């Protein structure tokens, strides 16, 4: 089946099998920041923004994304300049192995879009679906908090 989406600001037309997940199609077409950690919606590594909302791409058929706007980590940095959420997570020490990081950033962006000044608890609730085995979450939470501050200061990268 042919689907058409807006991926990171540009049009994309893909042939997808009816049974293929959005995760499989995105990775197959080069958006490999979207990670497969469990294939069943438990770990959050494959989170992408679908019309601005974080969803696990392994839990959607690709055809369900037809006509929608998708953002992945590939779409965040502006040339050489990192997006504030990328910079803040990195500088706070919220990136260890980095495998969960793209999904974490999607959940963070979803939150910061709704709430520019979240509390630590708000951040923890927003990231509850993103499993990280490396950090213990302290520095991920700090990174999201710092990203919020950067975005409030009007730093758009």
């Amino acid at each position, binding site marked *: 089946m042919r689907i058409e989406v807006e991926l990171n600001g540009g049009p994309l037309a893909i042939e997808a099998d009816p049974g293929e997940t959005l995760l499989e199609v995105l990775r197959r077409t080069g958006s490999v920041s979207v990670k497969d950690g469990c294939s069943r919606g438990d770990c959050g590594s494959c989170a992408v923004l679908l019309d601005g909302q974080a969803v696990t791409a392994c839990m959607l058929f690709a055809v369900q994304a037809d006509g929608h706007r998708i953002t992945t980590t590939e779409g965040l940095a502006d040339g050489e300049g990192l997006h504030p959420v990328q910079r803040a997570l990195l500088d706070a020490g919220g990136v260890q192995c980095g495998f969960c990081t793209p999904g974490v*950033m999607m959940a963070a962006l979803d939150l910061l879009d709704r709430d520019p000044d979240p509390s630590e608890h708000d951040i923890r609730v927003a990231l*509850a679906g993103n499993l990280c085995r490396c950090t213990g*979450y302290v520095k991920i939470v700090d990174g999201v908090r710092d990203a919020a501050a950067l975005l409030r200061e009007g730093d758009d990268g």
Partner: protein
Amino acid sequence: MAESMTGKFEVVGHNERRVDGTALVTGKPVFVDDAPPPPRMLHLALLTSPHAHARIRAIDTSRAEALDGVALVLTHENTPTTRYTTAGQGYPEPSPHDARMFDTKVRFVGDRVAAVAADSVALAREAATLIEVDYEVLEPVLSIDAALGDGAPVVHDQGCDDAWDAEHNIAAYSEAVAGDVETALAAAEVTVDVTVETHYGQHVPIEPHAARAELDPHGRLVITSSTQVPFHARRIVASVLDLPVHRIRVIKPRLGGGFGVKQEVLIEDLVALTTLRTGRPSSLVYTREQELVSARTRHPMRVRVRLGADRDGTLTAIDLDVLSNTGAYGTHSLTVMSNAGSKTLPLYNTAPDVRFVGRALYTNLPVGGAYRGYGATQGQFGMEVAIDQLAERLGMDALELRTRNHIRTGGTSPIFKELGEGREGVEQVITSCELPRCIEVGAERIGWAEKRGARRRDGSWVHGIGMSIHMQGSGIPMIDMGAASIKLNDDGSVNLAIGATDLGTGSDTVLGQIAAEVLGIPLEKVLVISSDTDLTPFDVGAYASSTTYVSGTAVQRAAEDVAGQIRAVAAAILRVDPSELTLGHERAATEDGRSVSLAEVALRSLYGVDQHQIAATASAVLDTSPPPFLASFAEVAVDVETGAIRIVDWVTAADCGTAIHPRLAEGQVEGALANGIGYALTEDLAIDATGRARATDLGRYKIAGTLDLPRLQTILVDSYEPTGPMGAKSIAEIGINAPMPCIANAVYDATGVLLTETPFTAERVWRALQAAGVR
């Protein structure tokens, strides 16, 4: 946060941006399975055993092979029969060589039966279901007690020379004795006798095992693998497939977490053989279920601790008896079990009479392996719970009892020599121990004096506070080796090539910082290449908390050699003696301010006078393994109505020597704690009466998420290890040892109920509370 850094370093001790950071946060294709698939790549799927113990009478692969797009089916009938161990350890591996690529017998639910290579993952999986296997189901051995029983089925009835006693299911045995522990216990004024039992846990790297193989244009086999041990993987694959080592190149790209489970050579042999047989590139990525069940786990252990002490609280005797369940194969069985003693007993070196006895038993259950903590986690659980029980019996504060007995700078223990890694150990004298400071700052931050014994109650929730202290090592002395090569480029930058394996900890950054510090250049001028058996010098890999200390020493030595060569050229330019020059700010300078840039030095050496490449390679094998130390303090709340445990506050103070990168070091502590807290409270493979794990996904195998943990507080105390690179020792493993004893001690403080069996699920805690009449 770190206490005041000494400020004597320019790069070390600073939270530099990671060398791989930008690639990671921009989602570049840096992990094994991210690279664009080469043309005609085959995808592998595994068929695994549904039985805990069975012999394969016959296997029919014809229907799978007949499927269009299936290129190859591997079974015991068409693969090498060499016995080997998947344990990625140094040569010769101190684990029994009891495995075959595919065996005629399966020994646990999840054991390999066959592999299918096909044009797509879906096709390979479909084909795997078409393989027909005729099993003769055998009686399984489903516990350590069953393994020891008279007439127990023999898991490795094919015989295994280097297992301790395969006929009686004993994979490994070790003992270490100092003094006469039985006499000392009999004479002791106060004794305790505590037995704890730990369960099956899995590492859960968020990236499952992944490997690809392809033939390069010269016919060499290139394996890209999510491995912690590229050099061991190359050696072991060569041996299993009977290939010369020089035919194989192993590359480790970025790694999505390892924690020990990627110190096993679990899938590289399959992609390698597939590519050799078909000439086509091949790929295998574990499913999450395979990662949980077919990969490796933490060895469950039964640990009995007997302590003897004087009335004043001085330990007189420690007896540690360990029964370890190594599961179907003996990977790391001897060394993990020995570590339960060697990383536990020296911490309390006041007792002159000490004994360790350990046996590792084969069962038809999932396979134990290397897992962060490596036996210390299980041994220290028993010890730290026993210490609290002894304190109660003495009527002494548990903190005070620890303070009276723990090892200090200048101290030693006979265990260091008696109990090594698969052989005799190496004598050690502690050259840095800031444990007293860790205990002091941790106790103050958590409010030990006010909260301990207070049993604050909030409805049905009762609060308690617990502590535990820990040690680990920094590499395996006289065994672990790291090497580094550095060369100077025309612009004053350097290439740093290291065999060391960054498994997501940031060790490429840490090792780069050490080189930058010695050479007086910023980190961005150090171009780090790591973990490629063709391009980097040897390193044993990422395990045993060795990288910062052992590989870091190699980097420091190589950098010092290069620094000397730079000074020699600079001295010729400046017409001074090399000894008058110091390196810093990318220049070699005299005390009176004359200087030359490293770029000028490089240009002269490459294009000018006396042309040569400024470069050096250095190795490190150390006879020291200074332990890091750590004190953890937990406040927990126990719901006496449901048995639920909530972590209210957690404070950890650690002594890792110089923290080369404090934020990464804190992250190691926090990550290890989170992993350990999950294991202590909720993670469980939940193995049923037939030996099958029920927790085969991350919904049921519950690791800690953001809402399961408080904001973990970490303090790195000021410390300097004189034998370490820039004063550093290790930090990556130690934290995982704290949660089990710390939580058990806190629950005891809250309720008076001692939890000795893990995990501390609400149901288990509720039953224990009910049995004790706690309401």
